[in-house]
């Protein structure tokens, strides 16, 4: 079983400090991390490999050279090897161009070792789009199953995978043929504390680096900024709604006013 996980390096938006008064953000403080959903994706690949007792896990990322860090991080979690696509030609890509570049990388990986399953994060926290995974699946013409909450079974013999998938009203159980592409929610697993040998391996690990010249027959017009149909128009601060009135008086008087407001809409607090 060869599982490839697509991983992205993102600024840690949790650490970005925000001044609630001015709504400005302090990006200085935000380190680049492995997209949290992708960490779960790698962990899921590791769990599947453990469950089956064998398998091979590759990770692939498109991004600037420091993204080797997240490949090492994936090796810590348990990936066997990693590839980084990095080249100015890929810069400025939107999700369409990203899925194209990644699908080229995946095809190249598959040539050396056929791929049985691709796992992506549900979304990357820098853009929150969640469009790259299904895009890759289309380009490689494999079925996607998005928003996976749990991988229930991987059946190597039947070449199927059974998953629990989140829907807007609950969840559904879906069976997909291999090869397929899953995008995973955080609930899919808990990231495990990596064993020391993985840490040592990761510290040593040198990812394979590919530039645009490593891809034969790639259509350069589909890459990077050129290959991106969407452009960012204007940026603006969201209009803030007007504030209402502040209640006056002592605490008790204010409480009374609130109660009155609530009782005006008594039906909300329906009394049987």
């Amino acid at each position: 079983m060869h599982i490839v996980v697509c991983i992205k390096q993102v600024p840690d938006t949790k650490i970005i400090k925000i001044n609630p008064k001015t709504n400005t953000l302090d990006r200085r403080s935000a380190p680049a991390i492995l997209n949290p959903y992708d960490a779960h994706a790698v962990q899921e690949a590791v769990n599947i490999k453990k469950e089956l007792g064998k398998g091979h896990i590759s990770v692939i990322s498109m991004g600037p050279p420091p993204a080797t860090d997240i490949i090492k991080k994936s090796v810590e979690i348990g990936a066997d090897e990693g590839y980084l696509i990095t080249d100015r030609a890929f810069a400025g890509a939107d999700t369409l161009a990203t899925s194209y570049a990644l699908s080229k990388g995946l095809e190249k990986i598959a040539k050396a070792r056929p791929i049985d399953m691709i796992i992506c994060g549900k979304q990357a926290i820098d853009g929150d789009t969640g469009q790259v995974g299904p895009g890759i699946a289309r380009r490689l013409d494999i079925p996607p199953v998005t928003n996976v909450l749990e991988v229930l079974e991987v059946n190597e013999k039947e070449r199927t995978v059974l998953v629990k998938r989140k829907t807007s009203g609950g969840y559904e159980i879906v069976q997909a043929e291999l090869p397929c592409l899953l995008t995973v929610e955080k609930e899919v697993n808990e990231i495990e504390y990596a064993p020391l040998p993985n840490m040592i391996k990761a510290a040593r690990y040198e990812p394979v680096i590919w530039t645009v010249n490593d891809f034969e027959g790639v259509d350069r017009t589909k890459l990077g900024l050129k290959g991106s149909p969407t452009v960012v128009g204007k940026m603006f601060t969201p209009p803030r709604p007007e504030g209402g009135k502040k209640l006056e008086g002592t605490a008790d008087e204010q409480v009374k006013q609130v109660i009155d407001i609530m009782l005006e809409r008594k039906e909300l607090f329906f009394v049987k």
Partner: protein
Amino acid sequence: MIEEYRGVWVFIEQNEGVIESVSLELLGAGRDLADKLQVPLAGVLLGSEVKSLASQIIAYGADIVYMIDHPVLKDYRTESYMKGLLKLVETYKPEILLYGATPNGKDLASAVATDLATGLTADCTMLDIDMENRLLEASRPAFGGNIMATILCKKDRPQMATVRPKVMKALEPDETRQGKVVEETIDLKEEDMRTKVLKIVKDVTETASLADAHVIVCGGKGMGDELGFQLIHEFAEVIGASVGGTRDVIEAGWLPYEYQIGQTGQTVTPKMYFAVGVSGAIQHVVGMKNSDVIIAINNDPNAPIFDVATYGIVGDALEILPKLIEQFKQIRKEMGGEISYA
């Protein structure tokens, strides 16, 4: 050739014959866009035995319903739905195509955008038209929500966007509205499908109940500690409301993630929303600002939450909540009944 593409479309997501509310909201938003562009608004309906839904789609504002009804389309699957939608788009060429940003909507939109090689903007919260260039202005929060970015797709058609549930307003349904239904056929075989939906489970967990709650009491970091936060639970209990929290509260471990309200949590639109000890960071506000009545309690008179609150109380929540709880208990007793969800 992009001039060939005309009309505004909304993908109508139905699950087991019930239209998702976001699709109805999008018909409301799409109506606006279509009127500006002076083109018809269409709903696109895929499914099995869903023909009866067409009239509802028209009542909510559509001029046309494009429809494919086929047994293989019974449950949503990327492969089959994508084929159906692609066929319609290629035949009737809309200039704008909107989807609800639900798991299925996002999945379908991403797949379709790849095949059409067109632009797709995710999770929009504002839509408008640049009349001069006849362009869809799809705006969404960027950089952690502090800023809105307007995304344009200038050269490719259709221009596509997924739109967050609960940010657009559905129109009042008008049963007398007239519209056209265009039905297409498609050649699909179950044997060709590489995925199967084995079971669908409705799961009305807390998450769902929060989204549908009529009254929400949201506590923030200002409650001090887990003990202070108990007041939120207590207050919610006596008034029969659902509890929510800010991200800081979830991170502090006072509530599980399902209860987070805001940009990275849930969007809610209750009839009444209490924000207690909540500063009102923009990431939080985007998730609750469409509530009908917002009542904020905060001891900092300059807290930004007061900019969105219908009624603001400047004061100590730890003092005010117990009073509210006590008084409401009294009222409940006087009315002699149990309080239950409206």
